[in-house]
């Protein structure tokens, strides 16, 4: 199958499923080595969630294409403007996350804040922050293009 024929939701879902499978494999490998911490369970939970949501996306996406949700921030019909809008939003979300990270690194390095958190939770936090910013940026740009 030519990947050009797939829309961005399906491509994203396939990537997420692969990430989920990688997470499950990492958990199983860790378990075999005797690692059973809360972090390891978090990885499993996130991996299973990724696989679950992605499978749902694969089933729901064709339905949403026929019946697009109108009052939702995330646009679900692929066309050139919306793809450009999403790319712009992702770019902005990435930059804002980087700025926040730089600020966090500087504050931590200078001892102004003391982060006694496991690095894996910080990484999860960064991911959640980036996705949230992405959705916020999509909503802002989407509204901007209409008004």
């Amino acid at each position, binding site marked *: 199958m030519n990947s050009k024929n797939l829309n961005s939701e399906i491509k994203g879902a396939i990537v997420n499923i692969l990430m989920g499978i990688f997470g499950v494999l990492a958990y199983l490998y860790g378990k075999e080595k005797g690692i059973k911490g809360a972090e390891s369970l978090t990885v499993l939970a996130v991996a299973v969630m990724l696989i679950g949501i992605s499978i749902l996306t694969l089933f729901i996406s064709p339905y949403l294409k026929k019946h*697009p949700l109108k009052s939702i921030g995330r646009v679900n019909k692929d066309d*050139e403007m*919306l793809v450009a809008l999403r790319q712009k939003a992702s770019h902005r979300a990435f930059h804002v996350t980087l700025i926040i990270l730089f600020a966090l690194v500087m504050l931590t390095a200078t001892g102004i804040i003391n982060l006694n958190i496991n690095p894996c939770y910080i990484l999860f936090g960064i991911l959640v922050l980036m996705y949230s910013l992405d959705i916020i940026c999509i909503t802002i740009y*989407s509204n901007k293009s209409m008004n």
Partner: protein
Amino acid sequence: MKNKLKLLRENLGFTQDQLATLVDVSRQTIISLEREKYDPSIQLAFKLSKIFSCTIEDIFIFKEES
């Protein structure tokens, strides 16, 4: 870029939704085009010129940025 999309669409009696379906984009894209918030790709411009049976220059007015 300025355009006469709204005028041409109304002359043909199309709704934004109908035009969007004809050129295979979302209604949001048609709204943005009409409000001159988005410049279309060359492919979309050709599709629109075909629908309105005119040239691209008849729909879009190119103005060089100073």
